């Protein structure tokens, strides 16, 4: 079954007096359990696509069905609910709340989801243990390394058991080694049955996915299955 079903969507911005067509007639389907990379150079429209996929923005025209529900015409609050329950975001710049410790950052989506305090703490702690940060729960973001911060962000994305995890250049602010660790973690999440959408402009990062959708000039240029993937040994063992 499709988690994501996008049909003929377009997005047009008005910049001053000029209309900019960021996306033009894009159609994509993503199934549950897929690991998809969306690739494209900057200015290709991949960020716009990601914002629409993440329900942060709505298409100008076209249909977007999420789990069979039409979200293309939802209002702000309905979209907020979808983001809260169904989408886990992982950003390039981590986007943690600086004044809150790791545990509270991970709790935050549950607070907005109306989960009671005990349950919340339990789930958040569980999620942090899952990303191997059980011993860093009460550290604030500025007391954590880049890799640790990104793992907190992943724990936050996972904690609501969302339908998709949307990772936007998750290794962009990390060194290669730490970036690899994060990619391993995503690998593992995929193995555990999560649907992952990875947005990147780096070929070698995109190759972690099973499928690569290439965007250029606001349209899908190519949509291909990655045949030969090298699964790192470490990922296979976890």
């Amino acid at each position, binding site marked *: 079954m499709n988690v994501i079903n996008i049909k003929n969507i377009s997005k047009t911005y008005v910049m001053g007096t000029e209309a900019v067509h960021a996306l033009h007639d894009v159609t994509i389907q993503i199934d549950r359990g897929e690991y998809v990379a969306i690739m494209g150079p900057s200015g290709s429209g991949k960020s716009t696509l990601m914002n629409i996929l993440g329900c942060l923005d709505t298409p100008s025209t076209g249909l977007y069905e999420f789990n069979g529900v039409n979200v293309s015409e939802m209002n*702000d609050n309905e979209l*907020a609910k979808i983001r809260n329950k169904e989408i886990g975001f992982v950003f390039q710049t981590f*986007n943690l*709340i600086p*004044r*809150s410790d790791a545990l509270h950052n991970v709790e935050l989506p549950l607070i907005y989801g*109306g*989960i009671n305090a005990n349950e919340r703490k339990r789930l958040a702690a569980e999620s942090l243990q899952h990303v191997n940060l059980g011993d860093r729960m009460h550290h604030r973001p500025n007391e954590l390394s880049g890799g640790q911060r990104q793992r907190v962000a992943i724990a*936050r994305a996972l904690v609501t058991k969302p339908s998709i995890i949307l990772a936007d250049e998750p290794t962009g602010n990390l060194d290669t080694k730490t970036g690899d660790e994060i990619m391993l973690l995503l690998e593992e999440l995929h193995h555990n049955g999560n649907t992952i959408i990875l947005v990147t402009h780096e070929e070698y990062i995109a190759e972690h996915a099973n499928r690569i959708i290439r965007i250029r000039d606001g349209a899908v240029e190519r949509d291909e299955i990655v045949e030969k993937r090298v699964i790192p040994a470490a990922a296979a063992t976890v």
Partner: protein
Amino acid sequence: MGMKIADFVYELKEGLAISFQAIRANKMRSILTTLGIVIGIVSVTLMGTAIEGLNRGFNDNISKLGADVLYVGKWPWFTGADWWKYRNRKDVKYQQYEAVQRHATLIKSLTPICWTQGVVKYKNTSSEGVLTLGANDQYLETSGINMDLGRFFNQAEADGGRPVCVIGSEVADNLFPNETPLGKTIRIGTSTFRVIGVVEKQGSFLGLESLDNRIVIPIESFFRRFGANRGIQINVKAVDIKNLDDTKEELRGILRKARHVSPKAEDDFAINQQEMFIQTFNAIGVVVAGIGLFITALSLFVGAIGIMNIMFVSVTERTKEIGIRKAIGARRGTILLQFLIESASLSLIGGIIGIIISYPLSLLINQVLPTSMPISVVAVAILISIIVGVVSGFLPANRASKLDPVEALRYE
């Protein structure tokens, strides 16, 4: 939109936590921001305390005048600009008191009053500035006061002009610190009087004049020793407070006749009553409250602008954070609530600081007026500061809640 109570509670708690973090992170800025609120709350609490004190003090004092007593004299209590007009009036004389006594039907009791101030001595002890009143035996009833020791002089003593006196508690304390005053002889001017009673303590009138530093003697004795040709005042207790106006009219008729006022001329005397004090006081109260309200409103307005300003800064500073919160599921209402809580907390902190500052100041007011900071004023102050916070935070909070998540996330 179906938002459960539980959701609201979690968001409320989260909002409180966020706002305290934010305020703690910017302590100095927060405190300075609340300055206007602090001043506003100080002024509202002090004004409330002062008005409470004025009212309480006034009510205590005004009851001493008696609601059913009319005070006839040459002077109205509140003269305004017509001082000379009253100054040139003929004195009220003893004969006019006799006319009232003879003809009035709607009165319960009445007494003539005349007075002089001077030194009073007992043996080698003396007391200065004592007011000696001449009155008749009904003085006690028209004044509504009670005896502490001994008795008041009776009608025979009054009419006979006996050399007896009844003294106030302050006079008793000054002249007879270690012995009973009863039966002792004191000197007023060059005349001697025997003390037959002490009036119970009455305190002061509007904090101006002690009512206990007084001596009452029969008016006959007063005339004989200090001279008869003098103006007096007549205190009249009405037979029933409901008919006070009738009593007043009757009194007016008798006095006009006794003083030969021609039918078309206006009264050349004044009939004063407690009501006049109440009216004047209420007018003053309105002015005090008006000034207080103005200062309060002004400083709260300044405070509100300050909070609004700092909240706009805060929203801008935290644009990215708002974007993050929205991305992970915060609704518009969530963000709105968060910033409203923050501005209300800021304002409330100002309010609490204001109350803390006001408390010692209210103790100072207490030196002058019988008051303490009423709990209702504290409650009102807290309520006002919360309302100011919410109102002034609304525009910034609304702006925050309407931020586009994509734009907000991109903000650096």
